């Protein structure tokens, strides 16, 4: 029911009279299929940010236009075309998956519009393929998993088993983990549509590592964590993960199978800064118990970034708007935030513990800062 209300509120915003001169923001995201919950988090967070501003971001009236890409690059491209060329939208965001981004982003920036990524950040757009109109507010894939490698190392582990699906992001994840872990790593690749990991559990037990790293977003992660517990491995071999494998929705769905896991993240619900507290409070007021994920947080930050730039310049003045964006002059929920040379984030990474929460559901508690204000490895290759 809440989802319907959220959708309705966007509709209400877009159909209210007197909004003709509002700045339009195009949100292309994935709302159908298993990863539909991710797109929902993205959309609802941006909508929430706009609602909090009373229909404005950075004091400028905005209008959200949301469309589902159906996880189909061709559809994403079609929507972008309509947004940019027909509706004159200059600011786009929301894409969840790298392969949709690959088809959409080059076209958007070539047509003089801005793309601000709230999630997907493929490496081919971070290095030589970078563009002055393309900003990433989330993180580059590699840095996410590098932090996890650093965490496992700092915990004193020397021997790890690393698991990920056999696709580009999975391989990047394991590569990123290994880069800073520096110990002995046995790699196991799973299948993209796999739901039963019993075979992998047996291999983990046979390998008897000191720590397990695995990268399985969405439903895969739910299945993996449950089966890890059922195999009796949860108490035996510690697990250190990066945030896509333990987002709020996943934790909610695995129950106590998540408890005891360590994870690295750039943001957590319990962060002690004003921006984060405001975001969490607004979400709770609007969506009650519904889990908050970092997808929502990144989308919220993206909205704040847009607001910061809109308060200084109009997107029709591309150079001024770009300068305003580069300044990253907004209060990020993650604390300190700035853009690197390739307009990807320079930010800090933290370790969290997953513990049993008061209502029986697991929750993440922030521990130490692992890495302080780091960028990504592709920034050097970007010539802008």
């Amino acid at each position, binding site marked *: 029911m809440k989802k319907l209300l959220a*959708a309705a509120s966007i509709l209400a915003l877009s159909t209210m009279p007197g909004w003709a001169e509002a700045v339009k923001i195009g949100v292309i995201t994935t*709302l*159908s299929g298993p990863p539909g919950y991710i797109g929902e988090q993205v959309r609802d967070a941006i909508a929430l940010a706009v609602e909090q501003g009373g229909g404005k971001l950075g004091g400028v009236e905005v209008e959200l236009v*949301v*469309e*589902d890409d*159906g*996880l*189909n*690059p*061709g*559809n994403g*491209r*079609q*929507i972008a*075309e*309509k947004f*940019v*060329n*027909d509706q004159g939208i200059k600011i786009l965001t929301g894409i969840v998956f*790298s*392969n949709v981004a*690959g*088809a959409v982003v*080059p*076209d958007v920036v*070539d047509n003089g519009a801005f793309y601000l990524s709230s999630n997907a950040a*493929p*490496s*081919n*757009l971070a290095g030589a*393929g970078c563009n002055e109109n393309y900003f990433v507010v989330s993180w580059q894939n590699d840095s996410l998993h590098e932090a996890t490698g650093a965490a496992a190392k700092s915990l004193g582990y020397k021997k790890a088993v690393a698991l990920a699906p*056999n*696709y*580009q*992001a999975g*391989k990047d994840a394991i590569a990123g983990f290994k880069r800073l872990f520096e110990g002995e790593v046995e790699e196991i690749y799973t*299948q*993209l549509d796999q739901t039963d990991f019993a075979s992998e559990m047996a291999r983990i037990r046979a390998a008897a590592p000191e720590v397990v790293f695995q990268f399985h977003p969405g439903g895969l992660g739910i299945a993996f964590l449950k089966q890890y517990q059922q195999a009796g491995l949860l108490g035996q071999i510690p697990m250190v993960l990066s945030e896509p494998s333990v987002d709020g929705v996943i934790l909610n769905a695995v129950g106590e199978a998540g408890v005891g896991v360590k994870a690295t993240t750039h943001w957590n619900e319990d962060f002690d800064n004003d921006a984060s507290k405001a975001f969490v409070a607004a979400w709770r007021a609007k969506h009650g118990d519904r889990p908050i994920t970092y997808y929502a947080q990144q989308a919220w930050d993206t909205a704040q970034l847009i607001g910061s730039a809109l308060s200084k310049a109009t997107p029709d003045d591309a150079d001024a708007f770009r300068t305003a964006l580069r300044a990253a002059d907004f209060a990020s929920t993650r604390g300190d935030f700035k853009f690197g040379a390739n307009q990807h984030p320079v930010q800090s990474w933290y370790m969290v513990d997953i513990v049993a929460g008061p209502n029986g559901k697991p929750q993440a508690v922030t521990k130490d800062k692992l890495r302080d204000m780091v960028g990504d490895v592709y920034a050097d290759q970007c010539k802008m």
Partner: protein
Amino acid sequence: MPSPDARNLARRIGLAVLVVALLAVPMFADSSSLSLVTRILIYSIAAASLNFVLGYGGMISLGHAAFFGIGGYVVGMLFVHHADATPLMGFIPGSNQLLVTVPAAVVVSGLLALIIGALSLRTGGVQFIMITLAFAQMIFFFFVSLKAYGGEDGIIVRRTNEFLGLNMRDRVTLYYVMLGFWAVFMLALWRVVHSSFGTVLRGMKQNERRMAALGYAPYRYKLYAFVLSGMGAGLSGALMANFLRFASPDMLHWTKSAALMTMVILGGVGSFLGPIWGTAAYLVLETWLAAQTEYWQLWLGLILLAVVLGTRGGINAGMARLAALMMRGRG
């Protein structure tokens, strides 16, 4: 059953309207409509190719995304090697020339269709559906794990291939280029359908046993048709990679095969113009519904169901029926 005259009239009217409308599209279409029409043209090449084996040859292939995707990947891989100035597999130079990449894509997908067809055509019926699906899935998984070419993320083709010195970044130019390829393909397909081979193929679909008793060896004819069809789907994929400037495993996924099949059935199996109408209907519906509601797949599902349960022979048969009615009204 509409009379042949009525069907002929419907076909002629349809064709005339189509040609005029297609030439005029850039004059009144906005950018996204132009892009939609371009996508319809490109996909309809793949749908018509599928219809060639499915509607004319009676082979239900659920693996045509393999040929579509390979066509796209050939363009993407040649572009990568052109951009890097490295040879592909150590000896093939990369290219960004449409007149090189597109024929290459057609040849490679034809070869792939030859291999897959030669094995698959040993079965029939449901088994044929499944074995074509199986081969397509194998190729999908192959490209998903092919790190050198982006794996799951796919290949970004930064610039559309060059073609006769035209400005391919201009949407209208690109549209007319695609329209040109489309028209050439459709004319070629028309010839093939009405050739000696095309006639035999249609006979094969109606009654394979009879054709064998006349001395036609079904396997060879069907394989030939399968290869031709694979080449057509490869052409479509190569054009799509140029249009989207992107090739990814998504092009190879089984749902793409299902979508192509949907386009064919929606338009009318075994009719020449059917796949074109079907492709248009499918893409317009998809685009329009997605803009209306985030639950667009619900409506798409309901419409598909209604079309299957409510009509026989898809859009094309409906139009022929309409033409027959008009004839009757006149005479």
